[in-house]
């Protein structure tokens, strides 16, 4: 292709668009279903329960330390399927491209999506492309939808947490949100932190094999661990108590949080999965997570109690307690 930037005509349904689809998307995603370019992807049905999810990705900047919007869009949807206890199977990807986006950038994003999809063992079987005028989108928005199958006997739900359960997480929190925030203009902290963007289908598979009666799974993205656990505490009508000393936070993340006045529990993660399991299965669940990728630093971070219902609280390093609220708005650097 001679054009080095995406133009409105690339979205107009004509020759240019057909070439863009073939040379960028079909070539990269490389699977026979997509290659057919039918109006819909047709895949074999399977017996059992289907999990179905969708998510839109609007992150800016589109390339950030440790990841990009493409990788995020595949992992985000794969992880939502995994959080339902499903084995992810197929994805669709709809692109809204701002006129003027460099073709090289689009190719880089798509290559990243392919890499994530391969790792997650899913294929992108359907897609859409629109180009909007300059200013109508912030470089690139991607919406991914996904389907997966939930195995027999697996029944995870945010309403299933029970007093006595253990609260587990697969690794360090805060990396993604901090990596993106520190890179922002006007903040510019120099940090070794990288986005933890990762597909967790394999991790969840191991976990469910060791603890099929896992009660809850949730990926703590926007709003961090705080938002995710508040949701579960409310839906299940329980109290969740976290141990500050047990929270896995990298030293550099702690430093960044102290400088900016942020709470690591409020910061977004893109490669993390919270699991609430019956206490009897906690050790086996941890062992299963730790035995493979993205779970080496898995830890027990808290427990579920009877009440007060709907509350998430933290036992601090001093042994005192405080409430953990959902953050109001996106975590921003403070001076106060």
């Amino acid at each position: 292709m001679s054009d080095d930037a995406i133009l409105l005509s690339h979205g107009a349904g004509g020759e240019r668009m057909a070439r863009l689809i073939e040379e960028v998307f079909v070539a990269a995603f490389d699977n026979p279903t997509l290659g057919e370019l039918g109006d819909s992807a047709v895949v074999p049905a399977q017996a059992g329960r289907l999990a179905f999810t969708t998510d839109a990705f609007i992150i800016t900047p589109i390339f950030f330390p440790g990841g990009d919007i493409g990788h995020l869009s595949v992992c985000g949807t794969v992880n939502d399927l995994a959080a339902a206890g499903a084995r992810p199977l197929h994805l669709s990807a709809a692109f809204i491209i701002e006129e003027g986006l460099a073709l090289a950038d689009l190719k880089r994003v798509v290559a990243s999506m392919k890499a994530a999809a391969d790792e997650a063992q899913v294929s992108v079987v359907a897609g859409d492309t629109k180009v909007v005028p300059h200013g109508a989108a912030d470089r690139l928005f991607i919406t991914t939808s996904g389907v997966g199958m939930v195995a027999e006997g697996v029944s995870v739900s945010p309403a299933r947490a029970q007093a006595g359960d253990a609260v587990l997480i697969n690794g360090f929190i805060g990396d993604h949100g901090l990596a993106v925030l520190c890179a922002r203009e006007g903040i510019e902290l120099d940090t070794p932190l990288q986005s933890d963007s990762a597909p967790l289908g394999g991790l969840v598979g191991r976990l469910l094999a060791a603890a099929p009666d896992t009660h809850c799974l949730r990926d703590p993205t926007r709003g961090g661990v705080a938002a995710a656990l508040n949701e579960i505490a409310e839906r299940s009508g329980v109290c969740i108590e976290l141990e500050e000393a047990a929270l896995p936070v990298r030293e550099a993340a702690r430093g960044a949080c102290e400088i900016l006045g942020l709470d690591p529990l409020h910061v977004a993660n893109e490669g993390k999965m919270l699991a609430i399991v019956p206490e009897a299965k906690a050790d086996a669940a941890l062992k299963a997570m730790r035995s493979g990728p993205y779970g080496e630093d898995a830890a027990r971070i808290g427990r579920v109690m009877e009440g007060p219902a709907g509350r998430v609280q933290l036992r601090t390093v001093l042994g005192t307690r405080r409430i953990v609220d959902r953050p109001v708005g996106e975590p921003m650097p403070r001076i106060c």
Partner: protein
Amino acid sequence: MCLAIPMKVEQIEGPTAVVDAAGTRRRVHIGLVDEVAVGDYLLVHAGYAIERVDEAEARRTLDLLKQLDVEAP
């Protein structure tokens, strides 16, 4: 208004210094503190060093606190 943390001076370049807190770093302005040296801990607020941490006083404070611990029944 008061969010400021001690950060260690790694490098000095004219009116600025690169300071570090557990691996996260930032260039800050040091014009409000005199005679800054590499290895100093500076109190950093909103991208400026506003004071130097007095190591001797810090040690004295911790010793006083540890005394309380020792004297406890």
